[in-house]
């Protein structure tokens, strides 16, 4: 039984390219779309923030239509850290925060895109 936010697709097969991300998440990892844009939604993503463990849901946009920011990572909270948190976005009926982190190429596997954004917190 699913007990997380991905419950609607309980039992869905994880796409192979998302399996590596699923390994660092406590819940469902799946593709979602809104307004023609493609996302990876992660429940309970585990990552390091300045060396300390963090865990929260996350949303990775794979095709953001801005040449400077071709991909984006959205988090449910503004983590501060001296980064330029410059947008409160409303995507897939949820509130998200993102910051200026440019140049993470969309032409690589989703895990590499995610890693490119999480670099900001190392």
């Amino acid at each position, binding site marked *: *039984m*699913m*007990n997380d*936010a991905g*419950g*609607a697709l*309980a039992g869905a097969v994880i796409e192979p390219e998302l399996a590596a991300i699923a390994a660092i998440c406590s819940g469902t990892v799946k593709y*979602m*779309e*809104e*307004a*023609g844009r493609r996302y990876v939604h992660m429940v309970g993503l585990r990552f390091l923030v300045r060396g300390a463990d963090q865990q929260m849901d996350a949303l990775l946009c794979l095709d953001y*239509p*801005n*040449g*400077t*920011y071709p991909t984006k990572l959205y988090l449910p909270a503004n983590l501060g850290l001296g980064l*330029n948190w*410059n*947008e*409160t*976005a*409303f*995507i*897939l*009926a*949820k*509130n*998200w925060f993102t910051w*200026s982190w440019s140049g993470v190429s969309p032409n690589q596997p989703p895990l590499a895109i995610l890693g490119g954004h999480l670099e900001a917190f190392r």
Partner: protein
Amino acid sequence: MTARGDFSRQSFLGEDAEQVLAETRVAIVGLGGGGSHIAQQLAHVGVGHFRLIDPQDIEDSNLNRLVGATQDDVINGTPKVEIAKRVIRSVRPWADVEVSKTEWQAAADLLKDAHVVFGCVDGYRQRMHLETAARRFCLPYIDVGMDVTRLADRHYAVAGQMISTRPGGPCMRCLGFLTQQRLDREENDYADAGINPQVVWTNGTLASLAVGAFMRLLTPWFDSSTEFEWLELDGNNQLVSRSRQPDYSIKGPCRHFTSNDLGDPFLDLSLRRAPKDSS
């Protein structure tokens, strides 16, 4: 005259107009220069339910345009939503007014609960997100905004627009208002955002256009069927005209918002307990 008041001077709107308006729930996002005007007018026409969202307290520099605000409010730092609530309740004490002193993204429950959303926000990206939210909850969206552009030394162009879109029709991207170039420029130059000039008379005109669009939607007193409205205000010449941009931009049905993008995609029915049978 009813318990709600005497609406005889607007009876041309239809026999049931008073009832329709009293039962309508509007969300107003941003209660500054544009939103405060809109709230005041909607109270006068007899709207019964308000959902007001704005995170800010009033500041001295808001007094040049914030309808209903007083010097005491500036001294006390009154939240903008509370000023609007006071204005509405002073006109219609029976109105149901819920306020949220937060960013609108954190008050999605108030948006979902509305029949119509008014957007009075800064910036193209916020407009894009707000229209996206309105579409997701299947709500008509009415947007106002104004700009002052410096043309040359001591010459300025005052301009604004009122855009109204609705689910199923062209969105602000289809219309050619939210262009990728504008969104990108705003995002890439975010650090350069200067002060945003605002004046009460231009805001008032735009608010009136927005309320007009709302009234046509709810109580169509003449025969006009439009899927959207985009009115441009040339504030220097005080002229309002229909924007011609959509004539060039609309390329068929909206492909930005599809029926897949409706509702809350994270709604998990398995988390909802069935009501207990008490028999």
